[in-house]
């Protein structure tokens, strides 16, 4: 009886372990997905990376590995990502390896949250696999507890049939999202110098890059050149007497410009553009007056 009871208990325990196993291992999953795994040589296709999780995840990093002899990465799109701030924007780190890391404040919990997508072009026929590896996902629990994550592969095959390449036409007429840049300083970085922070997203094509310019003049700032910048960006005018302009440009070329007013603006008489306007205005008034006076006399 005892042995039967032991076997019964063993079977129940085993059943319970296996019954609970799926929910434990499927806590989080990264999926690599595309419409069609049957490809032709020279064909362009897009693959998206999705996160599904039962628990809130607020930080994620990892690698996507693909066979570089079969595929050429043409573009990475992160415009509609659930990642709000990238530490490492998805980029090629070495042949066949894309790295990424970023955070979602407050955490993401749900199914099929898009991380980013990649457009590849096939090079030659063959079978291959796109895999994710060294993925670390951290819980939104205040201490960064690692969460177990499953990483299914994506398998594809490329036939010898040559595809007719039709470049994908993307329509993106929307500028990047609104954002609020800030000028600040902190003893922990840049030797306590003033710096600019900014970040935004573009829901269609994604942010391509940012540009910054500083000018003590309001009107004549149009003559100053934009320079590429990344956040955080050290302010050139540490006296904070300049207007700081930040331009976010998406991959379709749409731009949104913001201006941060100077904390210590020039007095009106210190700004030469005001004097220029006064003098030009005075000359204009004088010229018109003189012309009208002559007209009156004749």
């Amino acid at each position, binding site marked *: 009886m005892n042995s039967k009871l032991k076997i019964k208990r063993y079977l129940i325990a085993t059943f319970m372990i296996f019954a609970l196993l799926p929910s434990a291992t499927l806590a989080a999953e990264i999926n690599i997905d595309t419409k069609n795994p049957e490809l032709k040589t020279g064909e362009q296709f897009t693959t998206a990376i999705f996160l599904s999780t039962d628990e*809130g995840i*607020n930080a994620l990093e990892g690698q996507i590995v693909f066979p570089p002899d079969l595929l050429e990465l043409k573009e990475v799109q992160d*415009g*509609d*990502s*659930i990642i*709000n701030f990238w*530490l490492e924007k998805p980029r090629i780190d070495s042949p066949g390896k894309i790295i990424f*890391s970023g*955070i*979602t*404040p*407050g*955490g*993401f*919990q*749900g199914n099929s*949250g898009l991380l980013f997508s990649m457009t590849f072009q096939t090079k030659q026929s063959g079978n291959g696999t796109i895999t994710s590896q060294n993925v670390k996902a*951290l*819980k*939104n*629990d*205040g*201490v*960064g507890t690692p969460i177990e994550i499953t990483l299914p592969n994506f398998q594809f095959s490329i036939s010898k049939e040559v595809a007719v390449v039709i470049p994908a036409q993307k329509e993106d007429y*929307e500028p990047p*999202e*609104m954002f*609020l*840049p*800030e000028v*600040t300083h*902190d003893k*922990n970085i*840049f030797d306590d110098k003033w*710096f600019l*922070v*900014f970040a935004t*997203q573009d*829901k*269609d094509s994604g942010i391509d890059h940012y540009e910054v310019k500083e000018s003590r003049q*309001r*009107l004549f700032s149009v003559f100053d050149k934009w320079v590429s910048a990344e*956040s*955080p960006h050290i302010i050139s005018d540490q006296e904070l007497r300049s207007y700081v*302009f930040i331009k976010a440009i998406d991959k379709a070329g749409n731009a949104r*410009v*913001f*201006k941060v*007013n100077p904390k210590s603006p020039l007095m*009106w008489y210190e700004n030469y553009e005001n004097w220029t*306007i*006064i003098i*030009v*205005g005075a000359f*204009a*008034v004088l010229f*018109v007056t003189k012309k*009208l006076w002559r007209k*009156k006399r004749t």
Partner: protein
Amino acid sequence: MVTFPYHNKSIIAAVFLISLALLSGSVYASNQEASTSGTGPVCGNGVVESGEQCDAGGSNAACPAACSASCAINSCGGGGASGGGGYFAPSETKVIFSGRAYPGSRVTLLKDAQITAQTVADSAANFRISISGLSTGSYIFGVYSEDNQGRRSSLLTFPTSVTFGVAIEIGSIFITPTIAIDKSQVKHGENIAIFGQSTPEANITVSINSEEEFFGQIIADANGAYLYNFDTAKLVVGQHLTKSKAATGGVVSSFGKAVNFTVGAKTVLAQSPALPAKGDFNHDSRVNLIDFSITAYWYKRVNPPASIDLNGDGKVDLIDFSIMAFNWTG
């Protein structure tokens, strides 16, 4: 004396006024999207702010637009119940958030982790925030509130897919209760007071995590405040944590932030006000893009300052960012 015809005087005046306008910078400002911290509501920026009934960004206009140029809701047409001839504005792209926080509390809405709108809950703790002028795409919205003592709730997030011309309503949001304790260390056998704020008359469940988890229940007062005294004689000496959740009208919140306390040989009162949240490096009572930038500067660099290394492991890595993301305020 020279006199000019009326239209000539106008020309001179126009030249003079244009010069003045250029000097004041008003012409220039209209060509830029100015953005500075600490400014009031901006009608036309697509964000419904304090004092605005609506804001559809560039779509603000007279009827048939739903939102006027002064950010007030247009009353278009008057068909009424009988229908005939009334104009019905098409749905605009917007997301509406509503739920319960704390009476008179400030509720903050984040869009992709940055503050996009704030409102104040009414005396019954109800709140409603609407934002429009959104692009089609996926957003992570976040909502949190602060109680009457400045304590913050957890940040609740809502991944949302926005479609052009569709209004989405995310309702029944129940902000988690705030929580605090009167002692950071309590002498074994003495009481510890666990308190905070939720909605009026909410049923508060307090959890004390130990080897064995203890639960207590108490009803919040008319202002949503609750106080639960727990006898630590039930606990073993060591570290413990407590958290709370609320239930009212059949809706239950999730558990809010957890606070730690120690049961030991002596009693140490908790600090008031509480220390800045982990990740608030510049001590501005916010954990936001500035703090992210400071941390990002030290990402994978050697010898980071101890204040930046949030878990004290001698490096700034993904774990430090996860801790900061948990305490995020925007």
